[in-house]
């Protein structure tokens, strides 16, 4: 098992190298220039000064040299400085990841907590009114883009109820300082309601479907009939025999959710101005902030690969038939 994990980790090295090259290349192909983007149009800064800035930032060297510099720095654990925020990338990312994690962790817990029982019930009462309702719900949920749903929700729910629509904390309160930790948590909670609702509903749409299908696949198996013939109660048949077998694909899905747990959603965070990593990436791309974009994208890539590895390993724990080798 350990040998397998070690081998998989070694495989990550060439993959990551190639990914970073491609990412760097794409950044390079993007039109525009970091200094111009930073200064803005008509800033009045002279051409000489701009050239000097470029030299300081190392932007006047050719791509290969710059990629080499970036790689050398990064391998030493130095992710460089964000031009945009004038702060080390490492600090910027630390805070943003944490903010993203809070939002997505609750989103994931709530989405799974709802979709597992709903999916099981839909499967057991296949084509019943309950199942049909969730089928329509899923279809609508999957078809509707999350930004559209977010806008609808803001207009019809957020504004009438007076819920905070942007940011994570109330700026005035945050500056003045909270009277207690509890007050801070309540404030964050209030700000989370809107983005969380969009997050949960859009993941519910596919999750309930997924759980339903994996339970359905199991429920028609011969061994479920065997379990019934033992005279077990329907509850035991469904939850002990069927659900445990249906868990396998659900666990894999959980693995693929881990990247988004830390990665968040660029669109959702941008709409609600949630100070998470997706929002940062969005800003950084527009400002051509290479260090920050590279760091975030490499982080995304790592998450993806780690998620896959984790799903493969967790298979072995759930299914006695799977032996990792």
């Amino acid at each position, binding site marked *: 098992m350990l040998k397998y994990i070690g081998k998989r980790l070694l495989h990550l090295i060439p993959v990551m190298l190639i990914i970073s090259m491609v990412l760097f290349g794409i950044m390079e192909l993007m039109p525009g220039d970091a200094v111009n983007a930073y200064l803005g149009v008509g800033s009045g800064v002279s051409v000489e000064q701009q050239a000097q800035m470029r030299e300081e930032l190392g932007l006047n060297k050719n791509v290969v040299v710059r990629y080499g510099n970036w790689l050398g720095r990064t391998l030493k654990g130095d992710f460089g400085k964000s031009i945009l925020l004038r702060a080390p990338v490492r600090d910027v990312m630390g805070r943003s990841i944490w903010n993203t994690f809070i939002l997505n962790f609750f989103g994931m817990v709530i989405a799974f907590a709802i979709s597992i029982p709903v999916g099981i019930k839909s499967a057991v009462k296949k084509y019943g009114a309950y199942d049909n309702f969730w089928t329509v719900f899923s279809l609508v949920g999957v078809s509707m883009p999350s930004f559209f749903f977010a806008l609808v929700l803001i207009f019809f729910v957020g504004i009438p109820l007076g819920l905070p629509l942007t940011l994570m904390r109330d700026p005035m309160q945050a500056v003045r300082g909270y009277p207690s930790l509890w007050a801070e948590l309540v404030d964050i909670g209030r700000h989370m309601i809107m983005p969380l609702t969009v997050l949960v509903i859009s993941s519910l749409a596919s999750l309930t479907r997924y759980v339903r299908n994996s339970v359905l696949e199991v429920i028609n198996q*011969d*061994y479920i*009939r065997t379990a019934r*013939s033992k005279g077990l109660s329907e509850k035991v048949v469904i939850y002990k*025999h069927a659900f445990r*077998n249906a868990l396998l694909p659900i666990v894999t899905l959980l693995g693929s959710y881990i990247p988004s747990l830390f990665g968040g959603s660029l669109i959702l965070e941008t709409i609600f101005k949630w100070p998470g990593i997706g929002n940062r990436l969005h800003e950084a791309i527009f400002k051509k902030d290479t260090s920050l974009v590279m760091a975030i994208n490499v982080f995304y890539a790592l998450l993806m690969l780690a998620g896959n590895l984790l799903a493969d390993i967790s298979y072995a724990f759930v299914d006695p038939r799977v032996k990792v080798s």
Partner: protein
Amino acid sequence: MINKEDKSKREVQLEVIDIKKYFPVKSGFMGRKVEYIKAVDGVSFKLHRGETIGLVGESGCGKSTLGRTIVRLYDPTEGKIIYHGREIEGDIAKLKGKQLKALRREMQLIFQDPYSSLNPRMSVSNIVGEAMLSHGIVKPGKEYKNAVMDLIETCGLSPYHIYRYPHQFSGGQRQRIGIARALALNPDFIVADEPVSALDVSIQSQILNLMMDLQEKMGLSYLFISHDLSVVKHISDRIGVMYIGSLVELAAKDELYKTPAHPYTRALLDAIPVADPTLKRQMKPIIGELPSNIHVPSGCKFHTRCPYVKDICKQEIPILREYDPENHPEHFVACHFAGEI
């Protein structure tokens, strides 16, 4: 095994009276029930204690459905199933809840496919013992473990096998687990739904012999479903032949093989391969396709394919009757011309 000379003392254990099982076929946009598959369409017979009735017929003739309906895995659409058991006496066709659970202790099933009928996520000890715990036959702990080990040994596996998972066994071993599972509740009557058809021929006889040994030891009665006539001949006392949901012939094994009275039975027996390559066989294949069990033919269901068909066959449904009580006692046939053709 039953003593053939002593027919008067035979005790009826199970009596099936005109049982029917229809499955609705839904179609159309709103899923309206429009038609029915008549999987089992009026079957009656008696099973005696300690006896094995073999049930044969083509695929889709309703053998498995009949078996599952009798053990109440399916709810019968119509008809009565009279059972004379230890705790249950009378019609079991409409049992529910606690009584249905009690019925599971009296009758069990052995399933066809030993690969898919065992839960891959459970150890043998759980597969076999779960029902014992659920029915409160044994207490958890040592008593439970010993009971499972005993049962596994009775079925020809080793005690240490109980910690393994189904995928670690061969097909024959898996079917032994399936049998141990069925025996866990100590039933008197077992429906074996093609228990050997998924197994290699060399393993089939082992499993059949195990089943016969267990029958002798535990006084079991079997309803043995198969489409393999040689297997049925080996294990059965009496044999029933099914065709599109109905029993067309029922007789003692030797009687049926020597003097088949229904043209369908004859065609089936004709189709048994003979292990002699030099022998030229004059097989008369049944012509035509198996009619659908939704739109069942009128009169005798076999009339569309019967070589001896007459007008009456198309109109009147032949009933299952003892066609010649003097020369062929207890030989039941559903044919208008039994004994004449």
